[in-house]
């Protein structure tokens, strides 16, 4: 999904990875990432959940919580 959204296959995705680490991860690309994740997992996040996300680890935790 990161490859799809950022059109870049060299990004090493870790829990600590966040917007400041990736070129082009601005607020609009962030929204595109969230929309892509929502679509892929067929889930919807609330506005406040999206607002609290700090890094990839937070996103993974949120997906896991939804999948349970």
């Amino acid at each position, binding site marked *: 999904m990161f490859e*799809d*959204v950022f059109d870049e296959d060299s990004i090493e995705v870790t829990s600590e990875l966040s917007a400041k680490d990736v070129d082009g991860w601005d*607020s*609009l690309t962030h*929204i*595109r990432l969230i929309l892509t994740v929502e679509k892929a997992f067929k889930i919807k996040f609330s506005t406040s959940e999206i607002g609290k996300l700090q890094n990839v680890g937070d996103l993974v935790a949120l997906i896991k919580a939804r999948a349970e």
Partner: protein
Amino acid sequence: MNSIYSELQWLPRAPREFSERLKALEGAAGPVGGELRALALHALDLNQLTKLAKAIGCVSSKAKSNGNSLDPLVPFRLAVLSNSTVDLIVPALVATGVRHGIALEVIQPSYDQVAQEAMTPDSKVNSSKPDAVLLALDYRGLPLKLSLGDSEASSATVRGVIGYLEALRDGIKANSNAVCIFQTFAPPPETLFGSLDRALPGTLRNLIDAINRELAEYVLGSGEVLLDVAGLAETVGLADWHNTQLWNMAKFSFSDEFIPLYADHVARTVAAIRGKSAKVLILDLDNTVWGGVIGDDGLEGIKLAQGDAQGEAHLAVQRLALDLRQRGIILAVSSKNTDEVAREPFVKHPEMLLKLDHIAVFQANWNDKATNIQAIAEELSLGLDAMVFLDDNPVERGLVRNLLPQVAVPELPEDPAYYARTLEAAGYFEAVSFAAEDLKRAGFYQDNAKRASLQKQVGGVDAYLASLEMTITFQPFDATGRARIVQLINKSNQYNLTTRRYTDPEVTQAENDPEVFTLQVRLADIFGDNGMISVVVCRHGEGGVWEIDTWLMSCRVLGRKVEHMVLREILDHARAAGVSKLRGTYRPTDRNELVIDHYAKLGFMKVDEEDSGLTRWELLVEGADPQSAPMKVVSRGFVGAVEKSHA
């Protein structure tokens, strides 16, 4: 079934190697316009469109620096003025433009600078000298003050908005002379009162309705271009169109789900401005124009009847083709068939809407379809990029896409019920204006005149019936009608006097038995052909009596006095056969109470009544003169009878 629209289902899915092919492009040395277009001609999602746009940006700057062109793509500069966030839309526009043969350069000023950009001579938009300016405005940026129940205040609000839009246009015209593409406004799904919002002046829905209507009229009169976003939003559903979360977070005026669809509508509009819309619809025949295979199933076996679900699906394709023809689209046929076999339904099948003289070029042979389509293009002296090819067979579609990539070939779903909708959704024939010269047929004027006279109609039922210009056609049973006759006999429950069911062989027997009088009845009117709507079987009884064994009618023509006309026809034949009396029976079932008084209303005398509710009726042929109804009568195919046709 929104997925037809939101997933662009008329386009093939993106190939697995989409990303690899994009990467290969960035390193390519030769011309790349064709490969870009080939990639864009898939149903791409937002991420894929964004990737493609990036690749386009990369190759076009390279092409500029080394003097290569992006042929066959045509350049177009489009400025986007918006009061919402369009940053994710712009790349989608660039990528989708390529799908429509346009190399789009998008000029995007800062967020929410609509009026400044339009009215300042040296603004970013005006100084870039765009070919067109897209006014992608959202209702939330308009001065819409609710004025509930106050029609004066609400008209003032509407006038204010239209005045603002006109001022934007005047600014753009004065400063850059670009074409303005105005969008209608998609209203929100929420109402204040409920249904009353539509009617009550000054509600949001009422205001937006009025603005859209006035804007559309203004655009039509001004020579600018309209993009009906309100219509698009209604098509996919307002509740799905408006995503409140995305509006709150990032001021997206509609859901990300529809960005590819919206971009396609913008791009097809731009292509239409550049005169790149398709002009010819090439139709396959078997399983596209009718159900089944004419060569195998024959005239009696193909599915093409009103009342048959599959037949109606194919009739809808024919109707769309005819409507397109009416607005100036040329129709052609490409079919793998023997020529005379392929032509037979056009000539002989009573329910075919398409006739041979609607078809400009008829190619039925055993050549491959790419060869045929090329022949059609040559015969019409039109380019292949003006052609749309409709075929149910994925193999033929693949072949044509492969050999003639310029031809538009829509994917079709499994179910023919969605063929017509899919073809329409693809928007190949998008037009930005409509001139009298587009009209190829005087028939159009006649139809309009008919509609106008219908609207004026205020008289009684008879006058209304007369305005329908009905034609009723009587024939004895025959092989062509047999499938529908059997179907009606076995399906009709309500308008059915005896509910006797007969098999195909039994119907064939009645067809051939000189002692049995049969009728199949068709009805057409100004709205179209209703197909076969009534069936009658009379058997010779003793003493010059006809026993009405079966009399049934489709409920969709109730109230048209069809039964009176059928009786008149039966009487004509009875007189000619020397029959003195008709005898009818009403056999009650739990479904046919509708016709309990059928014979009484037609002037028959009741002669018998059983405990079961079964009644028997008689009518003397001599002197019987049932009511007539205003319709043209055609009677044909009866042995020994003179063909007649009278109003």
